[in-house]
C-alpha cells in the first residue's frame, strides 16, 4: 500500500504519473512530493511507487 494524501491506496508498481492521471488530476497543475521530496515534473513518468511510500499530491486552482 502507498499513502496518498493520507489515504492508503493500492498504487505500488505504478508510476506516479500514471496514478495522477487515473485519479483524475491534471499533471500540469499538481506538485508531487514523495517521502518529503518534491518530484520534478519531468520525472513523474519514470518514478515508480513503492510499498510504504508516502505521497502528497498538491492540486492547484486558478485565480490570483
Amino acid at each position, binding site marked *: 500500500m502507498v499513502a496518498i494524501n493520507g489515504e492508503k491506496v493500492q498504487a505500488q508498481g505504478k508510476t506516479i504519473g500514471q496514478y495522477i492521471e487515473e485519479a483524475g488530476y*491534471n499533471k*500540469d*497543475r*499538481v*506538485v*508531487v*512530493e514523495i517521502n*518529503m521530496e*518534491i*518530484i*520534478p*515534473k519531468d520525472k513523474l513518468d519514470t518514478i515508480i511507487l513503492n510499498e510504504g511510500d508516502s505521497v*502528497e499530491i*498538491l*492540486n*492547484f*486552482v*486558478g*485565480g*490570483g
Partner: protein
Amino acid sequence: MSKINGTFDSRLPLDVKEKLKSARVAIAGLGGLGSNIAVMLARSGVGKLLLVDFDRVDTSNLNRQAYSIPHLGMWKTEALTQIIKDINPAVELETICTKITTENATSLLGEYPIVCEAFDKPEQKAMLISTILSECKNTIVVSGNGMASYSDCNKIKTKKVTERLYICGDGVSDIEKGDILIASRVLICAGHQATKVIQLILDDE
C-alpha cells in the same frame, strides 16, 4: 518626512525594524495577490523586494489589484514601483519584466530566501513551486491557491506543507470553474501570504 527610514511605525521594537529592513523577498506575479502582497510588505518596512511580471496594467485588473486608472497601459513592474515609492521610498526595489519559466526561475529568484508565488494560472503555480523547491535548497515558497468566489472568507487558511512550502487559500475555488474574483477575498489571501512572510522574517531561527 524626516522620519522616513523604512518603517514608520514608531511602536515597532528596534530589533523587529532591523530584521524587516534586512529582509529580501521576491514576488512572482504582480496581479491580485502579488501587487497587494508587495504593498503590504512595503508598508511593513521589508528592506528589499524583487518584483517580477511580464504584463501591463489593464482595466480588468482594477477590481482587485493595487493599480489605478493612471497606471493603465504601464508595465506592472513600473506601476508598482511608483505605488511603492509613494508609500515607502526606503524600500529597495529590483524589477524584472519577463515571464518566469522552468528554465529561468532559478536564476531569477534563487538568490532570494523567500519567494511569494502569486500567479493566476494553476500550471504556472505548480511549475514555479516544483522548480524552486527542487533547485533552490535555501528558498522558502509562500504560495496562494484558491481565493476566487464570494464564499466564506474563513475557508482561506495558511498551511505548512513542508519545511519550505506554505500554501494560503481555500484550495478549491477556481476561476476556471466560473468562480469570480473579488477584491475582499483576494486581499485576504494576499494578507495570509504577506503575514506568513513577516513570520518567516521575524521568527527565523
